């Protein structure tokens, strides 16, 4: 699960930082996003990585490393990294950060920026499409509706797909491909 998500990425396994690929403006871009402001406060103590449930089982996901790469301006390396998507959103890192860095939220900002760049894992295309078409994140099959009735549960309300679809259109601005 380690490595880059897109073919477009030309990063190699070289351990040296290719200065030509450093974009000093990147950290500003992150910090300008809602919840991205606290990136500047990270002083690399590593509390996030040592608290991270995923980091214990993944060979490549290290929140501290991702934050440092973002601070340094390694835009492509960060945004095309498949490891970015391994955050479980448990918020342990955020709660434990001694510097008040909103670690989980900064990581979410980075994923959102990756989406803007065109890196969208398939699961989010599916989820978006289901919400757009049904209002629900999953397409609830007819059998579930029948079983609800058998179990004496009230029928599921029909979502207002027109309004939900409008909100998706306004907020996604075409960034997430249609299924």
């Amino acid at each position, binding site marked *: 699960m380690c490595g880059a998500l897109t073919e477009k990425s030309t990063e190699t396994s070289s351990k040296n930082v290719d200065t030509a690929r450093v974009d000093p403006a990147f950290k500003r871009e992150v910090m300008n996003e809602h919840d991205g402001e606290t990136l500047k406060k990270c002083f690399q103590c590593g509390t996030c990585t040592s608290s991270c*449930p995923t980091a214990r089982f993944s060979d490549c996901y290290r929140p501290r490393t991702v934050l440092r790469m973002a601070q340094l301006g390694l835009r492509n390396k960060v945004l095309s990294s498949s490891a970015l998507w391994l955050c479980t959103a448990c*918020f342990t890192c955020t709660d434990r950060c001694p510097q008040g860095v909103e670690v*989980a939220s900064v990581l979410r900002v980075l994923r959102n920026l990756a989406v803007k760049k065109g890196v969208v894992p398939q699961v989010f295309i599916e989820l978006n499409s289901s919400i757009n078409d049904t209002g*629900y994140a*999953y397409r609830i099959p007819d059998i579930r509706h029948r*079983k*609800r009735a058998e*179990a004496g549960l009230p029928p599921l*309300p029909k979502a*207002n797909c027109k309004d939900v679809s409008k909100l998706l259109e306004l907020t996604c601005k075409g960034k997430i491909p249609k299924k």
Partner: protein
Amino acid sequence: MAESKKFLMFLGCTIPYRVASYEVSARKVLPKLGIELVEMPDFNCCGLPVDPANHETTLALSARNLCIAEQMKLPIVTLCTGCATTLRKTNKLLKEDKELRETVNSYLKAIDMEFKGTTEAKHLVQMLKEDVGYDKIKSTIQRPLTGLTVAEHSGCHLLRPTKVAGYDDPENPQTLKDLIGLTGATCLDYIDEPECCGYTVVAIDEKVSLALAHEKLHHIKDVGAQAMVTVCPSCHLMFDMQQARIEKAFNETFKLPVLHYTQLLGLAMGFTPDELALKELRVDASKIANLT
């Protein structure tokens, strides 16, 4: 009898999709506790599943749900910790951040809605603690589950981020333990209790996801709990529905029944296992049902 408290039932997506037993049992026990559930018309996904892709979509989707509650002048209760944290976070953010509220309201305007900040959202556990109260719950116990040992799994989103949850200590959560204690069952301590179930990354990296759940099941097995108790449909899917796969992947047997808290409470209230949909659990829970 005291007047019942009304809450809008926000079902979310995971419960109607795959975890009906949680809803069935909640609808049995909550009326006994003086909670009247009002159905929420045309709600939509809370927005959390797409937050990694686009935060503004999440804010808009959850704000629309909050607007429905505002129009109905009722607070929201959810059974899902993910829905709870998302609705609570959006509610807090939009109440406190004028600029963000204006942005989200500009989207809502297109569907003739406006976020005003006049409602609140709670998870079942928070509602049981703050709106029902432990004394009331205790008074409904007909058959105390004395002798039953369980392990709790509160789930990350019930407890974190602390800024949003704020009613329990995420490093040493007590609320669910207290609620379990009211049923007469004994709640055992185990290593790394507040750890994540791994569900959120199951579609991204199954190996990491199953490893997290496996470790947790292993810790619970070590202390000899007879069952696990959850309060989130996603955590439940991980430990109940995926348990057979975890056993296969790690060549280890658990056969650990995973009950929703509402099922545990329902058994103690005197409901039958069938009334609480215990049969719908993937891991056989008949032993637990027979104990009561």
